[in-house]
């Protein structure tokens, strides 16, 4: 079993009459990229703030690298980095001044010049925070989260405001952060981002974890029916219904669709070859994390 970086058990938090967290539990392993996804107001940010000791939960227990974040907040802070949502810097602080300042806070900070290049801030390094674009601000805040060489880094809606190209660059950098051994906790509402980056994902809704697993597991369990598509001129395809996992076969002209669950593509392919049919366009109907996410949360969408 892998060592756990974060253990959260039975977390509860209310704001007045609103229940923000309702018996939320999750576990993040060391060295993984762990995604937290969920609709707006589902409790993602509150969870991460509790984990960092920035908010006090009403009930439940949290351990981060063995530390209780409320009791040993200052020790924890030297081990984690954080790019917070809704945080900012003074309007007139320059990029290099911010990096220099935040590097000075922590005893084992890295050379921030490296971060300036990694995060594409070189040409803006003498600009004031207020003069940066949304994407540049976001990149600076991520760089600040990394300057103390954290063991765990929290990235909350990190790629919001980044253009598609910068997002790809950010993804590569996050992969790189993980390869250096840093555990990454990623809050995002971009499903493609979660699917691409995360080793494991917790889906949070109404203050609880309603599903968790690898992206593939979530897609397989909650992504709806698997489907396999191909075209053929051959008749008499009744045997397709016998393919393991197949539940339904539809045919419109030459186009055939097999619906079902499990590793449907492999079994369908094998059966087709056995019957002497080798379609050039055999493919799986695409199911994405987005489908799984919508299936998981749609029942409640009407109520929010």
């Amino acid at each position: 079993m892998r060592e756990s970086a974060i253990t959260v058990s039975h977390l509860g938090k209310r704001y007045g009459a609103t229940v923000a967290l309702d018996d939320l539990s999750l576990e993040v392993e060391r060295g993984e990229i762990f995604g937290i996804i969920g609709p707006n107001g589902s409790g993602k940010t509150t969870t991460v703030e509790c984990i960092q000791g920035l908010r006090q939960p009403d009930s439940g227990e949290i351990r981060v690298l063995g530390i209780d974040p409320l009791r040993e907040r200052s020790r924890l802070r030297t081990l984690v980095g954080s790019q917070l949502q809704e945080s900012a810097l003074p309007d007139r602080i320059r990029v290099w001044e911010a990096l220099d300042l935040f590097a000075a806070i922590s005893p084992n900070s890295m050379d921030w010049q490296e971060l300036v290049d990694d995060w594409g801030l070189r040409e803006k390094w003498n600009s004031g925070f207020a003069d940066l674009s949304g994407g540049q601000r976001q990149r600076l805040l991520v760089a600040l989260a990394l300057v103390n060489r954290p063991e765990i880094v929290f990235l909350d809606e990190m790629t919001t405001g980044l253009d598609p190209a910068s997002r790809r660059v950010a993804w590569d950098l996050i992969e790189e952060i993980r390869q250096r051994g840093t555990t990454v906790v990623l809050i995002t509402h971009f499903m493609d981002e979660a699917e691409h980056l995360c080793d494991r994902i917790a889906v949070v809704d109404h203050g609880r974890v309603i599903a968790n697993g690898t992206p593939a597991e979530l897609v397989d369990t909650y992504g709806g029916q698997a489907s396999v598509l191909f075209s053929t001129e051959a008749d008499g395809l009744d045997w397709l219904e016998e393919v393991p996992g197949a539940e339904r076969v539809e045919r419109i002209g030459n186009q055939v669709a097999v619906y079902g669950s499990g590793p449907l593509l492999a079994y369908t392919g094998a059966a087709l070859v056995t019957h002497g049919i080798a379609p050039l366009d055999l493919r799986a109907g695409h199911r994405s994390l987005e489908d799984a996410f919508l299936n998981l949360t749609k029942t409640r969408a009407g109520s929010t």
Partner: protein
Amino acid sequence: MNALRKLTWIEFKLFVRDPLSMVFTLLLPFFFLIVLNGVFGNEPELDPEEDVWFGVGPADYYVPAYIGLVMAAIGVLSLPVRLATYRELGVLRRFRASSMPLWAVLTGQIIITLAVAVVGGVSIALASAIVYGTHFPNSFPLFALGFGLSALSFAALGVFLGSVLPTARSAQGAGLMLFFVMFLLSGVGPPRDALSGGMRTVGDALPLTYVVQILQGAWLQSSWDVTASFVVLGILAGASLLSFRLFRWE
């Protein structure tokens, strides 16, 4: 310690880049000084019945008063607006998440208050001496003591206002009002003895009134205003204690 040094230096640069702070702490007192000295000159009033200038020339009377005004501008305007803005934008949140200690954030602000008060005070004293031939403090040690106490007190008041005023806008509104009321009723604009009874009563409730009394006493007569210094000390203690309880990161 390194963090405090860096933060203070950066905050100092931010202060200089901030037009509101620069105008109210370093430019406006000079402007008032030029206008009022132009009106009143620097001839002492010889008839004790008529004298509102404590026996010295008006320009001499105003030097310690304006030094007090510089501190007041930082304490009620520049510092609270900065803290409230930081809270509103999430700068304090950012600091907190990066384990920037609260004491470092506040100590930095206090150091800047003292530094700017010294810079502002020295420039006013020098400019006034050169242009209007005014005098330097009668008792330098007493003045330095009064200066330190007053500046610390306004710094504490600034942190207190910055702790209770929720937004930059509210801090600016409250700060501007306090600044101008204090300017008019604390003896920095018209001398206190020229004010009507009612105005003087309002002035009695303003911190700058007592700061000006301490500074003028030390500067003009080598005297120490015991009552005023207790009031200022009380403001320092009260504001510190309240900010300690009421300070909010977000």
